[in-house]
């Protein structure tokens, strides 16, 4: 009979990680990985998000997200212009096509984090396991959102290509301000993801029908971002809201980089920008600074909102609830 004081042999696969000098417990494992750990969690989440959301191997899904949705959105606006006809409408065609193409990234980014939370909570029921892992929950969810933004970027590029080839958008690669485009793209992605983080904070508190919320939020931001019409058309108060929105500056900067001769969505006759600054349109440095400032403020607010929502969700046991109706 075996000696009850002798522990049974441990199967090979269960052998603990042993650090010399710390045979029993390694406190380093509880300290966390710091910035490196966050980066690892972030990149892993981006890879997971890309693997699950990018649809290279599924032509139907690629078509839906990267072609049909963004191109249809642009075509709606183009036809609206054609319906009205006239010089004004022709002048605005490039304006709306570029704005609509860029909006594909906005929708993906806004929906990305929110849908990731809803999916993990309602469908895969994995959220509690993600939450209790050492990786920071916000960092992981942000990584998933970034993957979706990248998917949206494919839609943007395709829509722009359709615009150039079929809809007469005048694109000259030698006239594109590539440094500006690079800068505003990076800052813009941060701004987009921060909006997504705010929405993620909201859906942590709400129930399954929140699947539709990203669409609603993207649609509402459409109004004040200058994506498809100059802000000057709006009442003054709405224009001011637009000026405080990083998305408006991102679209202005991207449009200026891609189409240097394009009409400004921020400035122009009757615009709040003109009233406030006395200049017809913002300069390129002004655009970058405004994007940086509004983006930073938005990112800070988003982080605070998410942490607050996380605390509330933890307090009320919402993190692993299922809420269908």
């Amino acid at each position: 009979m075996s000696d009850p004081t002798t522990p049974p042999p441990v199967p090979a696969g269960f052998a603990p990680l042993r650090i010399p000098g710390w045979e029993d417990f390694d406190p380093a494992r509880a300290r966390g990985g710091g910035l490196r750990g966050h980066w690892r969690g972030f990149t892993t989440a981006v890879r997971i998000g890309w693997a699950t959301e990018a649809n290279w191997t599924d032509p139907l899904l690629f078509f839906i997200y990267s072609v049909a949705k963004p191109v249809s959105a642009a075509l709606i606006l183009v036809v609206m212009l054609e319906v009205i006809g006239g010089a004004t409408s022709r002048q605005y065609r490039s304006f709306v096509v570029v704005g609509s193409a860029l909006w594909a990234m906005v929708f993906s980014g806004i929906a990305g984090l929110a849908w990731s939370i809803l999916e993990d909570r309602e469908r895969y029921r994995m959220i509690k396991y993600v939450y209790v892992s050492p990786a920071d929950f916000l960092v992981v969810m942000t990584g998933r959102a970034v993957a979706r933004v990248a998917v949206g970027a494919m839609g943007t590029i395709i829509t722009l290509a359709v615009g150039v080839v079929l809809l007469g958008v005048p694109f000259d690669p030698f006239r594109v301000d590539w440094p500006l485009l690079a800068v505003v793209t990076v800052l813009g992605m941060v701004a987009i993801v921060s909006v997504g983080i705010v929405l993620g904070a909201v859906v942590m508190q709400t129930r399954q029908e929140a699947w539709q919320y990203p669409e609603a939020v993207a649609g509402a931001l459409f109004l004040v971002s200058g994506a498809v019409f100059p802000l000057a058309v709006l009442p003054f108060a709405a224009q001011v809201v637009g000026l405080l929105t990083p998305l408006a500056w991102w679209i202005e900067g991207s449009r200026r980089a891609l189409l240097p001769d394009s009409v400004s969505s921020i400035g122009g006759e009757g615009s709040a920008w003109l009233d406030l600054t006395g200049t017809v349109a913002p300069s390129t440095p002004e655009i970058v600074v405004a994007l940086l400032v509004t983006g930073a403020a938005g990112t800070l607010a988003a982080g605070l909102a998410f942490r607050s929502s996380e605390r509330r969700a933890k307090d009320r046991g919402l993190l692993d609830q299922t809420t269908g109706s």
Partner: protein
Amino acid sequence: MTAPVQRVPAIEARDIRRTYKARPRDVVALDGVDLDVAAGEFFGLLGPNGAGKTTLIKILTTLLAPSSGTARVFGFDIEGDTRKIRRIMNMVAGGEQSGYGILTVREQLWMFSQFYGMPGAVGWRRVDELIEAVGLEEQRLQRVNSLSTGQRQKMNFARGLLNDPWILFLDEPTLGLDVSAARSVRELVLAWQAAVSGRTVLLTTHYMAEADELCERIAIVDHGRILAIGSPTDLKRRVQRESVFRLELDRLDGGPARLFRLPGVVSAVLASADGHEGTEDARQTVAVNLVLTDDGALGEVVAALAPLGSHIVALAKSEPTLEDVFVELVGRGFEDEAEAPPPDDGLTPAVPQGAHEAGEPELEDVV
């Protein structure tokens, strides 16, 4: 009210087969199952995970079509009469997370009462009574997503009784429940069957004690086949042809050898107080493990004790468990991960391997 005796069997299944398409190869979940369950019977399907129990119950509850074979529930064909079967049956599965978290227990059950066509007011009344019957009065206005696992299962059980089913399918109903909650569910099942006569229950489980105590008849299932069917007693009798007793005496002069010579005694060995072979224990009683050819031989042994000056302190009969039956049939336990060859024809026990070879520990030692 006592229902008249049903001539139509509750379940009749013939050569049911079910294959799932999967990579790298198809999975044969059921491999020719024949089953007859009489009306009013409490029948169990006992087997390890992956045996095919849930697949069979899903076929009988019209959720899954068999790849081949036929089955009838109270005479209604599972393929052609699905609506009729759904009117007279209900099902409760273990680990169920269904429902709408935002509703209260009362509302959730009422919603399901509407699916069974109950008038609104009748539905509310029935729901309130069932909530009381299953012991969820305090939770009746609590949202479903805040219930504990045990409470949720009681609610599921109440849902299963809403339409007063003629046959109730229970698919591992105590899965994941603690001892107390599992006991409550088992009591509820028995209470229901006792309260409404003539109702049939088909239970799938891998908890042997549950099947042993609840079921009138059990089918042991493994690898998509029924290996044996019978009452728990009959099944155990298959593997134990002799009667085993543990006899505790105040003294036994001459040791167990004095008993060994008696007619009907196959073996008599000393046992310690905890059942292991050993010497006399501290209380100065003598425990003997007796193996007799049958229960009748016990009388001879008892009669022989008095002349020896021995008095019986305790007498208990040891019975094989259903796991012993399973091991006898298949050659491995429920938890044994080692591959064992399936039986030749699915109906006769396989030659047991491993456990009975020399040098291998006996089952009781493994536990």
